[in-house]
Every structure is written in C-alpha cells, then in structure tokens.
C-alpha cells in the first residue's frame, strides 16, 4: 500500500516536472546553454516580459522556478536537478539577482515537522545551486511548511504540487 502510493506520487511529480521544463529542456537536453542561447536573441524583446531572458517572468516560466518532491522526502530527482541546472545557469548569467528558496510541504503531516521538512527541501535546492557555482551569499532559504499550499484539494494530484521548493528571484542591491 505504502509503496504503491509512493510510486504513484513519483510518477505525478515527474509528470509535473516535465511539464514545467518542456520548453527549455526539450530543445536543449544538455541543460547547459538555454539561458545563454536566450541572451543572444535580444532584438525586439520587451524588457521584463517573459520573452526577456533577463526577466523574472522568463525565470519563472521558461527556466522553471520550482522543483517537486516525493512524500516526506527532500531528495532531488533527475527532473528537479535538470530544472536546477537551468536556475544555476540563469543566476550565473544574471549576477545582479538574489534568490530566496521557499520550501513547502503538503498537508499530510504535523505543522512543526513540516516546517523542518520544508527547510530540508529548500536547503537541498540551495546546496545544489551552490554546487553549480552560484555564490552562497546570493541565496537564502525559508520554509513555510504546510502553511502556503498552492493547490487545495486533499488528493495526491494537489499534494504533489504542494511538495515544492520555489526559487524566488529579486533584483540585487546594486540594481
């Protein structure tokens, strides 16, 4: 029973992860040059729009701002790592941005444990970005536990999207 549901959750997580990253990684499976390729095509782009590769909209929609986790886990799967490769590249290409990684849990868990679990997830993301060369001084993390679900149903379809770490970027102090 437990194994079955875990397997299902993993499938759901993978499916969603694939969706989020389809635009970027289907075109460039190596995961290395996406942001760089974007930077090249700078004519006719509205600054700040999702077409502007230096915009936070681009980061959210094209790079992918979130990774998902299995039940009670903080391990980064292949899809999550691919997304984070892109995030790391983007952050290296756009050095004026800072990032806060928000860790979240689904509602199946006690409140304080889920706070710590969300922290584990966010920290896993932060450490991965650092391992890819992003300066730790540009990153910090915070956990919301189960306090900020984005999906409200009490089913795995919703839980899978709520077990997430979201990288929120903001313009740095130097502007």
């Amino acid at each position: 029973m437990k194994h079955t549901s875990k397997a299902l959750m993993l499938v759901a997580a993978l499916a969603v992860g694939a969706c989020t990253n389809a635009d970027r990684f289907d075109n460039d499976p190596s995961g290395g040059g996406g942001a760089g390729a974007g930077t090249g095509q700078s004519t006719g782009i509205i600054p700040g729009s999702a077409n502007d590769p230096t915009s936070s909209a681009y980061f959210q929609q094209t790079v992918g701002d979130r990774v998902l986790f299995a039940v009670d886990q903080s391990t980064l799967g292949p899809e999550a790592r691919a997304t984070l490769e892109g995030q790391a590249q983007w952050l290296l290409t756009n050095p004026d941005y800072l990032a806060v990684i928000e860790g979240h849990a689904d509602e199946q868990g006690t409140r304080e444990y889920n706070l710590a679990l969300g922290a584990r997830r966010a920290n896993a993301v932060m450490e991965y970005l650092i391992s890819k060369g992003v300066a730790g001084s540009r990153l910090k993390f915070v956990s919301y536990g189960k306090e900020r679900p984005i999906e409200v149903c009490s089913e795995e379809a919703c839980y899978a999207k709520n077990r997430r770490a979201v990288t929120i970027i903001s313009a740095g102090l130097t502007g």
Partner: protein
Amino acid sequence: MRQAVTAALMLVLSGILMPLAALAQSGPLRIEITEGVIEPLPYAVPGFVAESFEAQQLAQQVTQVIAADLTGTGLFREIPREAHISQITSFASPIAFADWKAINAQALITGAVTVDGAGGVVVKFRVWDVFAGTELGQGMQFSSTADGWRRLAHKVADQVYSRITGETPYFDSRVVFVSETGPKNERAKRLAIMDYDGENLQYLTDSSAIVLAPRFSPGGDRVLYTSYETGFPRVHVLSVGNVQSRILQTTEGVMSFAPRFSPDGTTVVYSMTQGSNTDIWAMDIASGATRRLTTGPAIDTAPSFSPDGSQIVFESDRSGSQQLYIMPAAGGEGTRISFGQGRYGTPVWSPRGDLIAFTKQNAGRFHIGVMRTDGSEERLLTASFLDEGPTWAPNGRVIMFSRETQGAQGATALYSVDISGRNLRRVRTPSGGSDPSWGPLQ
C-alpha cells in the same frame, strides 16, 4: 441502603489515573473517575437567587455557565428545571431533600448573586448531597468586578467538580490558539486568547504575518509562538497583560520555531534549523544564553518538558520516520518510546506527569493519543482526516486539539476529548482554530 446509594454514586470513568487512596475521602457523594462509564451523575442547579434587582439577569447567566461547565464534562447530567418540585427562593432556606430525591437529583447546587452599589458581583453557593441529606463541603462566595462574572461561575463549577470527583478542576482557565479565516491557499492566522469554553475571545496579533503554535507560560502571563513577522519564522514571546511581543531568537539567517516554556518559566526550548538540520536548543530567557540539546542530522522538534523539569519529550526522524524520544533536560541521547505502527509527533507531557499525548499518523488517518512515559499502554482517543496538536487541561483529564476537514473547502476547528476517548466536543470559536495551548487554572 446507604451502601446501595454509595455504590450507585460511584460512577466509573476512564482508567489509570485515580489512585485508590482517593476512595477513602469524605462524603458519600462521589464520582470515581476510574474504569468504564456507567452513567453521568444527575444533578440539579435551580436558578441562583438574585439578591438585588440588578442581579436578576446575571443570576440566570451564572447558573447557565455553571451547568454548561458541569454537563460539558460528560460526567454530570443536569435535571431540567421543569422537573423540579421545590423552588429555591432564598439562599438561607432549608433544603426539602425529599423533593430533590423524588426527581433523583443526587447533587443539588444552590446559590445567590448580588450586585453591589459599586457594580461588584458576589456569587455564593452550596453543594448538597441529596440522598445523604447533608451539605457537601462548605458554602463559599466569590466576588469580582461586573465583567468578571463568568470567572465567578467557572470558580463555582470548579468547586462542585472538585468536591464530587476529588480531582483538581479546570473550568477557570484560558486557551491561546491560532484563529483562522479564509481558504486553505489564502489562510489568515491570528493569535487569539479565550476562556476554555470559547467565551471572552481577544485577538493578540493581526493577520499580517503567519503565526504558529502558541504556548502559554506556566503562569499564563506570557505566550511563546512562531511568527513570520520578519519574513522568516522566528520565536516570539508575548506578554498577555499589555499584548506586547518581542523576538526571542535573533540569530540572523536561521529559522527558529516550536518554542515551549520550562515548568519554572525561565527557560525556552525550541527548534532551530541550520542547513538541512533541525535541532532542539534551550535559551535562558533572562540572559539570552543558548545551549544545544540535540545534535545529528535529523529533524528534532516539538519538545515538551516533564512537569518536574528534569526531562524533555520530543519528536525526531532519526530512525527514518517521526518517533517520540525522551532525553534529560540538559540534552543528550534520547530514548525512543514510540514503537507502534505509523508516525508519532507533537508529544506533550501531561501536567500529572504520567502520560504523554501525541499526534499519530497511520494508514492515511490522524489520531490524538496518549501513552505512558515509557511508551506502554498507547491509546488512540480520536481518528479523522487530520487531527493534530494536543494540549492538556490543567488537571490532565481532558485534551484539546485541532481538527481539519478534508478537501478544497477544508477548515480547522478546536475540539476537546476526555482522556478516556469519550465526550468529544467541538469548542466554540467565531472562525476556524488550530494549535490550542491550554493555560493554567487561574
């Protein structure tokens, strides 16, 4: 005859708590809270006599609160006014015991309410053992300002409860909790404080920042909680008197949460997250000096002191899943005490010291349960989609907790349950509620 009456009066309720020595106590009117329910004890509480015109409405209200307290325990059953034969028209009048026996009122509570010229309220009362034809204990009176009348009623009910059960009471107590409004994905949370029965609610914070898991100080004068006021979860302490709060844990860049007071109120234990690791720390409130109590890469959180302050029960996933452990208050190796199926969290040590309440997750359900401090005699008291966060009544006989319903419209509410698992009741709150912490007897 006397034997039979005594036996009939011995209601037998939940297990394990009542020392046998208590059987030797005073009068025959007695609820023994021990094993297995027979039936709640029938009692009558005729409307308290108003001894001044100003007291007429108040006398009725006081009587209603007393009856609600007693009946709300599940240990007592009120005989309705319509069934009464005798009327009590003066506090000093002799009791017509035969009239109360005839309706099988085993206990009778009489009282009177006066409002003095300055607006002060005085409530006096007597408890009668109807079948013995005697007074149980002595008449007493309590007084307060006009706005304190509910507390007077709770104090009377506390006396009645205590005289008949031999237990310490809990009605004159308050609860701090998180008041919740709005849908799941946009929930607003505020700290609120109220009487144990949901009355006299007062908000302590606005909803601008997420607040979590408040805990009363042993004296009830301060509240520890976690707030995102700084954008980051941090332990705060709030003074109930002037509703002023300050951040207790100030280390930059680390999350601190799950704070609880030591029994002497001088120390706070809490969780702090560094990297992926969450450990339990202790802080001396006066000096701010901190000490680490657990080490290792696991999530160690939800600490709770034993009443004597010598030990701490907490949850850890060091074994791979959430389980309960006990360690010395100075920190160190924990001894695992939970071994059943599923995950165990949020342990709270009973004020009597003998039991630990917890939240258990197993097979997709949540339970509130209790176990002995060595982990034996686990009993699950509730089951639902999501029950969590137990807190003990000051006498260790009742547990309050939060329950959340399933689905997109899911909402939270506070419930209480007897430690026997009986008398599950919803606590009235104006909106949703979670994370209750039951304060001391006032």
